[in-house]
């Protein structure tokens, strides 16, 4: 009898799974989801860090000039300083609302920034359909909000928040998590992630005056426009202990490139890359490309630079991803 049951169970399992086939692209999806998780961790590790790399690079270059060892083919430092000063003026004088759409590591995301307000939202992609309450995904396509980081009005006061839509939770961002400089450790960390706007661009720019260097490195065609390409010097930083443990690497080397419209001198594209290494995990690259738009500061556009915490979401002491 015992043997019968065991044999019948085995045959039953055979029958039950007879038509089961694994979906295609499992490895690719696993790789993509792993990168997404790493990117989210990196972004959360530095609070509302991220890049505003255009500004950082711009000011860094203005302050520091071209780095030693710049190739002879690059535009000279005088030209770089001129371009960068024009970009700086364009950014400072117009009080525009920034909208950035990012592809690449971590799936699609949208960033909004206006003055001290910012909103970064990451969505699930076609390969990671609906987010489950534990932060993993189903695999049936679709796109829905995954996390948001930025400024919310709480009691009428602008407050840094982190929202995880998949488990309907939110938390306050730790104070002081915004990097003082794009060349600080947390600032450099954020460069490899999708651009989460800093809380205040002018402050960020001033804080990065003494940092690093950038160079005009040529031109690139983007959407029919011959843009000016400005590249920052690579920065290598040691990862904070929590982040190092999460991704099992000790160091990250990052670099930014920003593309500027030669007529308006406003950045139109921002790309960032990061390479983590020096730990138990194999070295890994993460990249992101963001297309930037500069919108008039209408009430509707300004409102988009705020995070809204949906009704029914529970406040927790720390983000679910940490």
């Amino acid at each position, binding site marked *: 009898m015992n043997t019968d049951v065991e044999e*019948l*169970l085995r045959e*039953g399992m055979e029958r039950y799974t007879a038509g*089961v086939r*694994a979906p295609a692209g499992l490895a690719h999806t696993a790789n993509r*989801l792993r990168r997404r998780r790493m990117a989210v961790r990196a972004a959360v590790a530095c609070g509302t860090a991220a890049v505003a790399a255009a500004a950082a690079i711009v000011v860094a270059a203005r302050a520091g000039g071209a780095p030693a060892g710049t190739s002879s083919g690059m535009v000279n430092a005088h030209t770089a300083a001129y371009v960068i000063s024009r970009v700086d003026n364009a950014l400072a004088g117009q009080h525009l609302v920034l909208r950035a759409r990012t592809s690449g590591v971590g799936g699609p995301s949208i960033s909004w920034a206006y003055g001290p307000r910012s909103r970064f939202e990451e969505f699930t992609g076609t390969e990671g359909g609906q987010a489950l*309450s534990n932060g*993993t995904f189903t695999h049936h396509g679709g796109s829905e909000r995954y996390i948001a980081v930025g400024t919310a009005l709480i009691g009428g006061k602008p407050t840094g928040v982190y929202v995880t839509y998949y488990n309907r939770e939110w938390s306050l961002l730790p104070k002081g998590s915004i990097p003082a400089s794009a060349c600080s450790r947390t600032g450099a960390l954020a460069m490899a992630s999708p651009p989460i706007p800093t809380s205040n661009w002018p402050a960020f720019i001033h804080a990065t005056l003494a940092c690093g260097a950038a160079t005009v490195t040529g031109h690139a065609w983007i959407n029919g426009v011959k843009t000016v390409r400005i590249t920052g010097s690579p920065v290598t930083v040691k990862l904070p202990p929590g982040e190092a443990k999460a991704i099992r690497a000790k160091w990250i080397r990052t670099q930014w490139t920003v593309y500027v419209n030669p007529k308006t001198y406003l950045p139109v594209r921002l790309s960032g890359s990061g390479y983590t290494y020096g730990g138990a995990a194999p070295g890994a*690259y993460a990249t992101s490309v963001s297309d930037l738009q500069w919108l008039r500061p209408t009430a509707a556009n300004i409102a988009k630079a705020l995070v809204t915490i949906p009704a029914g979401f529970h406040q927790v002491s720390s983000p679910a991803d940490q």
Partner: protein
Amino acid sequence: MADDRAAGELDRFLSERADLLMRTAVLLTGSRDAAQDLLQTALERLLRHWHSLDGDPEAYLRRTLYNLAADGFRRRGRLQRKLLLLRAETQAPADATAVVDLRDALVRILLQLPPRQRAVLVLRYWEQLTEAETAAALGWPEGTVKSATARGLRRLRELAEGWHQAELDERELRGQRA
């Protein structure tokens, strides 16, 4: 692009083994959707350790699958399994013979067992591993495997005995009607 290389190597490995792994994951979770999520999670972990693996990647992947399942991966799956059972009970069996019905019923009960018992039974009777091998795969003491197997089988035997009794009763009833 170490990750891309790892993903490429993993792709080649999966081209041969993915269907079998998916079938195992279905037995561990009770549904294809949950199985896909389980397998995906295990693959992510495998990718993370791909370059530091000493042994067979499939052995690592299976260990991860079983341990995730035994730890109650995705507790939400319980509801899905219950729905699956309800659905199965309202459907006519593909093969109308009693033996086939019993096979199906055994699998339905298997999917209702606690995750640890289910994982052990899948390892023992699907993967055909010995108790010692099962214990090694799960990283459990052999005694734990033995007791989990015994409890799981007891449930299945109870079902089978109840099934046979119902068969006998029905035959007797049919005989009386005739």
